[in-house]
């Protein structure tokens, strides 16, 4: 069995956050969940060794893509995804590994995140 993957999940929708956290934990991720950018910043600054970060596109009045860019600075080798009901914004993908459209099956979501983590691990080892 592969090693658990530490992952930060940020979503201001409590139902989505609760359910997706449970699903991802079942799939072998160790999930740190945050409802706001402030909570997420606290987790990022606590020094948790995150390998994957999934950020909701719209976080109340804050922009998930801007927070993802902050995460890229803190975790240059983490796999960072935007999770959104909107279509990908091609013009704003710099530093982001992928765009997960809400409604994507969990199997696809898990496969994409695992694949990205694996390819970053291979690149750095």
């Amino acid at each position, binding site marked *: 069995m592969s090693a658990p993957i530490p992952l930060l999940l940020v979503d201001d*929708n409590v139902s989505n956050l609760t359910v*997706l956290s449970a*699903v991802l934990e079942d799939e072998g991720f160790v999930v740190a969940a945050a409802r706001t950018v402030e909570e997420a910043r606290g987790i990022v600054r606590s020094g948790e060794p995150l390998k994957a970060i999934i950020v909701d596109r719209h976080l109340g*009045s804050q922009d998930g893509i*801007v927070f993802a860019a902050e995460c890229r600075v803190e975790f240059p080798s983490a796999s960072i995804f935007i999770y959104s009901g909107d279509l990908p*914004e091609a013009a704003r993908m710099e530093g982001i590994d992928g765009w997960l459209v809400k*409604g994507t099956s969990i199997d696809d979501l898990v496969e994409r995140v695992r694949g990205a983590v694996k390819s970053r691990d291979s690149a750095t080892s």
Partner: protein
Amino acid sequence: MDHEVEELARLSILEEELSVLRHDLRNRLNGIRNGAYYLKQKSSKTELWESDERVPVFFELIDDEIGKAEESLAQQASVDHVLARQLEDQTLEIGVTRALRMMAVPAHISLETDFGQEATTSVCEVEVALFARCLVENSIEALEGRDSGSICVSTRSDLDGRARLCVEDDGPGLASNEIAAAIQSFRTEKPGHRGLGLNIARRIAQRYSGKLDFQTLDAGGVSVGATFS
């Protein structure tokens, strides 16, 4: 009154309202789908899964129904199909001039235009006019409560030859962390406003494969614009 621009403005407001509804409902449907997935995974390992054949069928049914609801949302909860866009090769200056003709600018604000060298682009004049109007109205709001202020609307080709329209003002400007809030629908601190102008402008910019960009000016104020291609 410019009826075509007013009609597009009304449809654009409706589109923003529908966009918020689509986003909210997609979030909720996504929560239901993920919850059903979790329950399916758990129950598939129990005796119930084998003993009652309706259980796996009902999970399939939930997934199918959510998929159909998402499809209906995307196809029907939108005004895209009634937006009649007439594209013509022209300069952005034409749309800007049309917008400014119908606008009332408060006396304490000076409004200038700076039309530079600009190649023609395939655009819908009404959309360009509404885009310019939204940005100028945003600047006028930014200058509310001041004794004086200035706004400059400019059009020109950028270094890649793409037509660019931008509106600058010498108001208080926007910090980088305020930009996301500024373009969130229905969020405004200004009484009497609905907080949709920048959103409508952003959606128009996206139709031309562009995005709305913001630049804080050294002298104070902000420049908001987009390229059209």
